[in-house]
């Protein structure tokens, strides 16, 4: 197999650098604010943990503290966008878009206002805070909204690039972030192209059983580890990373399905309605293909350390490998 050349050269070494992708958001927002005077940021009492504090400290006149009121924050942002501002609203994904979904749908998306919605603390890897704070439904509720772009960057560098891209794009965008440090898979130089997937691992020779892994967000690294082991075990493996979940890179997905026996999707989200749902919907119409979805299986999370939770809910490297093997048994 061939690994994309732009990835972190220390990819499979012990001690690969880890960082929460919300740090990339904080840096990107600050940079966007320096470049574009119309960028404004809104917080619902979670300024530091969403990393909006970097922007707020530098540009207090462009920072709006909304208090613990996510529904109001979404619609205030819509009003600011109506005046030509580019508002970023940041909270935990469970509260925004979780609690403020209708305001986002009607006053931002249907209203066609240029608001960027930052959902931090997605996934079970939120950890000890437990199920109330672990958003594992956000991709589903956001990708169903017309006129909404959905991004799930995989690490600190990609999060920064996603923010800079979203600033230039006119229209509503949802960016999904996590709380815990995750391996830094890409580099500062890695490309980020809106709406395009990236083939991080490419199958280079024909093998008997071939797998097309499709992943997004925080679990890209687990999928990369699984790809490496599967390759070593004799499977043919490619890995497509989709930082843009909506609009879906249908060309890349179709290409993968046409050249591999089995498609396996990997995401830190409910199996229902997320990336796996999007891929299944698309392929069932275009090119019926067996799709195995790795994700949370219609249950809530719980407290615990992130790594333990990822393993418990069968989303880690071993779970991916098991699922692939089972996929070929049938």
């Amino acid at each position, binding site marked *: 197999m061939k690994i994309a050349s732009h990835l972190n050269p220390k990819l499979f070494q012990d001690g690969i650098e880890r960082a929460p992708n919300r740090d990339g958001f904080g840096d990107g927002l600050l940079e966007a604010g320096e470049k574009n005077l119309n960028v*404004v940021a809104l917080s619902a009492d979670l300024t530091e943990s969403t990393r909006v504090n970097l922007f707020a400290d530098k540009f207090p006149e462009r920072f709006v503290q909304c*208090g613990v*009121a996510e*529904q*109001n924050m979404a*619609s205030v942002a819509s*009003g*600011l966008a*109506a005046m030509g501002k580019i508002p970023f609203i940041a909270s935990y994904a469970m509260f925004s878009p979780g609690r403020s979904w209708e305001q986002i749908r009607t006053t931002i998306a249907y209203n066609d206002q240029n608001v960027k919605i930052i959902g931090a603390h997605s996934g079970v890897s939120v950890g000890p805070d437990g199920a109330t704070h672990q958003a594992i439904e956000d991709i589903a509720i956001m990708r169903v909204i017309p006129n909404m772009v959905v991004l799930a960057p995989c690490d600190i560098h990609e999060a920064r690039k996603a923010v800079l891209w979203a600033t230039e794009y006119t229209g509503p965008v949802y960016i999904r972030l996590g709380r815990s440090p995750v391996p830094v898979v890409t580099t500062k130089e890695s490309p980020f192209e809106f709406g395009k997937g990236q083939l991080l691992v490419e199958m280079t020779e024909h093998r008997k059983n071939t797998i097309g892994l499709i992943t997004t967000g925080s679990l890209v690294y687990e999928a990369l580890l699984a790809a490496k082991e599967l390759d070593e075990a004799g499977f043919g493996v490619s890995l497509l990373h989709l930082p843009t979940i909506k609009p879906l890179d249908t060309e890349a997905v179709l290409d993968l399905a046409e050249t591999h026996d089995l498609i396996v999707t990997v995401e830190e989200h409910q199996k229902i309605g997320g990336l796996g749902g999007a891929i299944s919907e698309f392929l069932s119409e275009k090119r019926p293909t067996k799709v195995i979805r790795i994700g949370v299986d219609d249950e809530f999370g719980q407290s615990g350390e992130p790594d333990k939770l990822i393993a418990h809910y069968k989303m880690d490297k071993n779970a991916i490998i098991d699922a692939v093997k089972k996929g070929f048994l049938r």
Partner: protein
Amino acid sequence: MYNLSDEEVRSLELSANAIRQSIIEMLMAAGSGHTAGPLGMADIFTLLYFHILKHNPKDPDWSLRDRLVLSNGHICPVLYATLAHRGYFPVEELLTLREFGSRLQGHPHRGSLPGIETSSGPLGSGLSQALGMAIGLRMDNEYTSQYVYCLMSDGELQEGQTWEAIMMAGKERLHNLVAIIDRNGIQIDGDTEDVMPLEPLRDKFESFNFDVQEVDGHNMRMVADAIGKAQAVYSQPSVIIAHTIPGKGVDIFERDYRWHGNPPGKGPENMVKKSDQGKEALRQLRTLSGSIKNHDLD
């Protein structure tokens, strides 16, 4: 201050009457929609669009315009009729209300029709949007004289989000935000004070740091004076609680909550049978024989 002359008041009242007739005609053509709210707010909409707002019907996107946010989108027949009579689009188009392909959606859609600032319908989010606009204007110019008017219903104050917005408007001391509440006392299921009491409303707003005025929402002079005072308030948002009569102008509709969500032809038959409701409403408005006359005309 606006100091409306007798002639101006008369002219505004005649415009409001024409707008009420259009509302009835639109609702009859659509066969569905809300009657009481639009009729009750016809005077205030007329006053705003014909006398108060800085706007330009020929250039709806003029950047220096005031903003009018209609929060309770279901009373859009009055907004549509006022915009048409003010020259934003042809009056004949009003009869396409709620039709397939019409720019006059059942609830307003920004981008479909000139002059619509926000899409609205789900209650309780308009004040937040108006608040965002007012903050945006102030970011660009601390002493802005562009105002954001948010027209709201009383029933929608039961939505939690409005109180989030009210709390924040008070905190932000937004002098350029003027909320006007259609205090008609009714909602779909009955009287507001039975469904979920709102009183003491004035005290509630005052405790959230608003400047509060209460007016007769059908007295052009009184409403204009209140808006003038609200504009003069420094470092506080303003609310004008406009006491209105739902269904104002047509006696068979007035003060009856059952006319909240029914068009003429589908309303209660205790006074006039369904087939004659529209005709009777237009007769009253055209002859000015209903209660539309107020003391300024006497």
